[in-house]
């Protein structure tokens, strides 16, 4: 008798499949999938067609236009510039959000009353609208704004740094604003990760003579790997799709130096240049899809470990 033969008590595979069909009707999947199909899948599929047309509000018929949208966006430099800006933005946001999030988690780790209040306070920006956060920082960073006022008091003479007016540094400033808004979320996830670490492990390290610094970098930080994976993946992929903070602070300026793909899409859509907008939307789709593969693979592997 082969080892794979069913034992007398179990149902045959076919009967089990029939029971599964009856008990778990496929029809229950249909409403959710239908809504996804109309509002998510169909536009995504259409995007692959309309990026190759001359669709705009200036003529009524839509014709095939080949690769002309891509080539014109490539030739005037917008495609490369906006893609570069978006990637730099996402990478800087991921770095800042995780660096500051981890630092805050370590700072506020002990369960004291003060720390509990401060943790909640750092979560307030997460709850706020990103647009509102953008306007707050626009006021704070104006040349005549509050930050220059504080710096002026500290150095003893008035300063008027145009924080949002530099074609080089403003991109860095807006990523710091983005990180400020979301740092509370990273902090919470790192705090949860730190809490999962076995106390005996740290005690053993202390007995072996490891100082605070060594025990953090050698023991606690490696054990935070799942939290790092989650935080980096969500920050990186999420901020590729950003819009609000940049629109509220710089609208993509100065000189398009902070123009994210979504800012371009919104601007050109408003001008009636639908084909250009949808072409850039396709570029965004591919950028995220390509970057998502390694990220999903990492998350999947983690899921199996759990």
């Amino acid at each position: 008798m082969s080892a794979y033969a069913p034992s007398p008590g179990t149902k045959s595979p076919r009967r089990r499949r029939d029971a599964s069909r009856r008990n778990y009707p496929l029809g229950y999947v249909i409403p959710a999938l239908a809504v996804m199909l109309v509002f998510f899948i169909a536009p995504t599929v259409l995007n692959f067609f309309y990026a190759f047309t001359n669709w705009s509000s200036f003529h009524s018929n839509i014709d095939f236009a080949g690769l002309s949208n891509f080539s014109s966006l490539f030739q005037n430099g917008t495609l490369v510039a906006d893609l570069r800006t978006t990637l730099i933005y996402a990478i800087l946001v991921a770095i800042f959000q995780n660096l500051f999030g981890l630092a805050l988690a370590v700072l506020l780790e002990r369960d004291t009353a003060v720390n509990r209040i401060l943790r909640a306070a750092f979560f307030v920006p997460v709850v706020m609208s990103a647009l509102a956060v953008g306007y707050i920082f626009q006021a704070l960073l104006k040349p005549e704004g509050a930050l220059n006022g504080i710096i002026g008091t500290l150095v003893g003479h008035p300063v008027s740094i145009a924080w949002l007016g530099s074609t080089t540094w403003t991109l860095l400033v807006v990523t710091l604003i983005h990180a400020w808004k979301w740092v509370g979320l990273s902090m919470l996830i790192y705090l949860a990760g730190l809490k999962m670490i076995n106390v005996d492990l740290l005690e053993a390290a202390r007995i072996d003579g490891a100082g605070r610094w060594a025990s953090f970098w050698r023991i606690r930080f490696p054990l935070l790997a799942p939290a790092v994976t989650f935080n980096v993946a969500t920050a990186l992929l999420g901020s590729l799709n950003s819009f609000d903070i940049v629109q509220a602070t710089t609208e993509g300026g100065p000189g398009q130096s902070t123009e994210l793909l979504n800012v371009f899409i919104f601007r050109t859509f408003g001008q009636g240049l639908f084909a250009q907008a949808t072409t850039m939307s396709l570029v965004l789709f591919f950028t995220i899809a390509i970057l998502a593969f390694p990220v999903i693979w990492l998350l999947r592997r983690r899921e199996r470990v759990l």
Partner: protein
Amino acid sequence: MRTSRLTSTQWIQPIGAIAVAVVFLGVPFWLVVVTAGKSRAQALNPDLSLPTHWEFFQNLTQALSQGSMVAAFFGSLVILVSAVLLVLLLGSFASWILARRAGRGMAVLYAFSISGIILPPAIVTLVLVLKEIGLAGTILGMIGVYVGMYSSTVIFFVTGFVRTIPAELEEAARIDGAGPFTVFTRIVLPLLQPTLATATILICLYVWNDVFYALFVIGGRVNTLPLNLYQVASSGLYLNNWNLIFAYVILMTLPLLVTFIAAQRRIISGITSGAVK
């Protein structure tokens, strides 16, 4: 020696932590509150000084009445409540099947259903689809867009959770003659409560604060709080009226802030439970 080091760190840590919070949170929030209390002239160049005389409540009432905030609030509320209820309901039904049925076809279907977690919606052609089906610029269209966008999030959370519920629990009800609908609504759905709470929090946060998709789908037709804030702050009415912009920001943030403070512990444990295990 050990005790003396402990006492010194006991003092340094809270002082350091409070200093960090004052610089990074205190300054921006102080700016919002004092500016919202100033007159228009005094708020022209927002700084950290106190208003010469407080006009806080005048500014709040002006933001409420001028910016058509009440209509925007109800627009936001209707869209939020319908989208969240619908996406949770449809997502849960689908997740149950996706979690319980095996096979290659189901795996493909599952991968397909969670694709929206990472892939961005094609917003420009989405507007085209909405025009074709007559839902462009309508509340119904906006609700459909959010349900389509966040179905993946719900399905991802709930499917993972259903897999941890033993199928034997359903078997008992089935032996008593219950059909799939009864088994799902009576046995499975009540057990999903914690994971549905987490999904609700995340989706509420995104939908309540969304301005990007709303600008394309309902901009200029239906008002929501973020859309309204965008219009008043960027297109004339409040341009450089920082006192009114910040009064608006305060009013708009209050509902979520109150919810957050009231359900703080639950929100925090809900968000972190999914991420780190």
